[in-house]
């Protein structure tokens, strides 16, 4: 088994997949706590559907580099969703539902009407669940992924204290002169970037799992914001690595294997937390 693994690990595209997988897992876990606690998880879910729709349009238009189209569209929708969230005419969650389901339906419709591909359901499936796209990344895509994820990590580190303040208590932050709207916008844009990145790894339907599970697991065991953040980043990277290795050896789909490992980690953390309470 070790030999097979070593053989695979010498192949360039497997190496790319590992690098990109680690980077994506790292940055997707960073904003998990904020997303869960700010009740933003539905925005993440909605945006992933938007990304699917955008991907479909990119496919129909025969764009060579899909990311360059999908990214701006998703970021734009993130900004739009945040704006409508503050508008009282259409309630925030209803707006998200409308945009996300609409994007999903239009995307599938467009693919059906215009796609030249012989294997339509295969294409749809791989966009939704990620399947093998991570193994077919070109060098340029790897660089784009690396650049974007480093940008996400740097932004997170620079604004760590502000993100904490805005997540914990918006009103207090606003009262002490923090530009809350600007930071909410920043968070939404970063989430959009993460979602487009993570689409390569796990597909658009499974992205929320990648963002939420590590954070929820870490919250079982750790009590400080910093502890939860560090733990969830480490856990997410470990799960992604393990998931990719398992999928290489077992021939399982990459995205769902990683999510399965994330779920297992969540269960293990829950049991540990339960045992710790019992002992005390």
């Amino acid at each position, binding site marked *: 088994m070790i030999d097979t693994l070593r053989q695979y690990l010498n192949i360039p595209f497997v190496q790319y997949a590992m690098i990109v997988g680690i980077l994506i897992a790292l940055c997707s876990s960073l904003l998990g706590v904020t997303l869960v606690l700010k009740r933003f998880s539905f925005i993440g879910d909605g945006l992933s559907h938007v990304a699917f729709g955008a991907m479909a349009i990119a496919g129909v238009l025969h764009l060579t580099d899909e990311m360059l189209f999908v990214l701006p569209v998703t970021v734009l929708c993130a900004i739009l969703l945040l704006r409508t969230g503050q508008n009282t005419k259409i309630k925030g969650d209803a707006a998200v539902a409308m945009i996300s389901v609409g994007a999903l339906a239009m995307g599938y419709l467009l693919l059906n009407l215009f796609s030249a591909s012989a294997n339509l359901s295969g294409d749809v499936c791989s966009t939704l669940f990620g399947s093998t796209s991570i193994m077919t990344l070109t060098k340029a895509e790897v660089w784009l992924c690396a650049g974007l994820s480093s940008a996400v990590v740097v932004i997170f580190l*620079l604004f760590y*204290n502000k993100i*904490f*303040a805005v997540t*914990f*208590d918006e009103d*207090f932050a606003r009262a002490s002169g923090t530009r809350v709207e600007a930071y909410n916008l920043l968070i939404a844009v970063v989430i959009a970037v993460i979602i487009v990145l993570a689409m390569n790894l796990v597909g658009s339907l499974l992205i929320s799992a990648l963002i939420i599970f590590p954070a929820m697991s870490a919250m079982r065991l750790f*009590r400080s914001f*910093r*502890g939860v953040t560090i733990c969830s980043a480490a856990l997410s990277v470990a799960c992604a690595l393990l998931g990719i290795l398992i999928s290489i050896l077992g021939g399982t789909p990459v995205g769902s294997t990683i999510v399965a490992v994330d779920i297992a980690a969540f269960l293990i953390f829950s049991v540990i937390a339960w045992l710790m309470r019992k002992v005390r």
Partner: protein
Amino acid sequence: MAQLQCKDLSLGYEGRAVLSGLTFSVNDGDYLCIVGENGSGKSTLMKTILGLMKPLGGTIQWGEGMRENEIGYLPQQTAVQKDFPATVQEIVLSGCQGRISRRPFYGKEEKALARKNMEKMGITAFARRCYRELSGGQQQRVLLARALCATQKLLLLDEPVSGLDPKVTAEMYDLIQRLNREGVTVIMISHDFSAALRYASHILHVGHEVFFGTVEAYKSSPMAKRFLDTEGGENA
């Protein structure tokens, strides 16, 4: 010297006024209690003073050397905070965010300030404990320490004792009174009339009628008499 002056203020949502014709001022070292029934516009007034809402009319003027973001605000607890993973230290330190404005990280000065205020509130022992595991009274002290990191001049407290038991409530009032005697101006929303009359120096009663003045003047006003007669049974 007036720290805060409101003239002919009218407040409300989407053009509909909840309160209007509000004129009052707060001086250095005052202890102002804003009282009134539920729905009388107390919280709206507080949000307007904080700059979270724009007034429909009238003016709010800050005294010399006061900036809008130098208010220490103690909000009511939100649902998010009930299961937030953060230590006491992290939360108190976040009170310094107005001070660092454009810098990304807290420096030595901010950390020292946070330590000092945790000591003042008697929560140094919990510094590394998780906020959600503390009792209601301890949590309020944490939020008060955070508010003190944001200001040395003016505290704005939104129902600081709601949900606390009588003993902890009394401790909280004593703590606030001590801060006031040390020179911090206090503006407090409360529906606890007896406490308001006992601790405050000024009363702002909002509702159909508006009263603003010292506690002594309030006690002898016909408005207070009527109110205390009906409410007095449960609160006095």
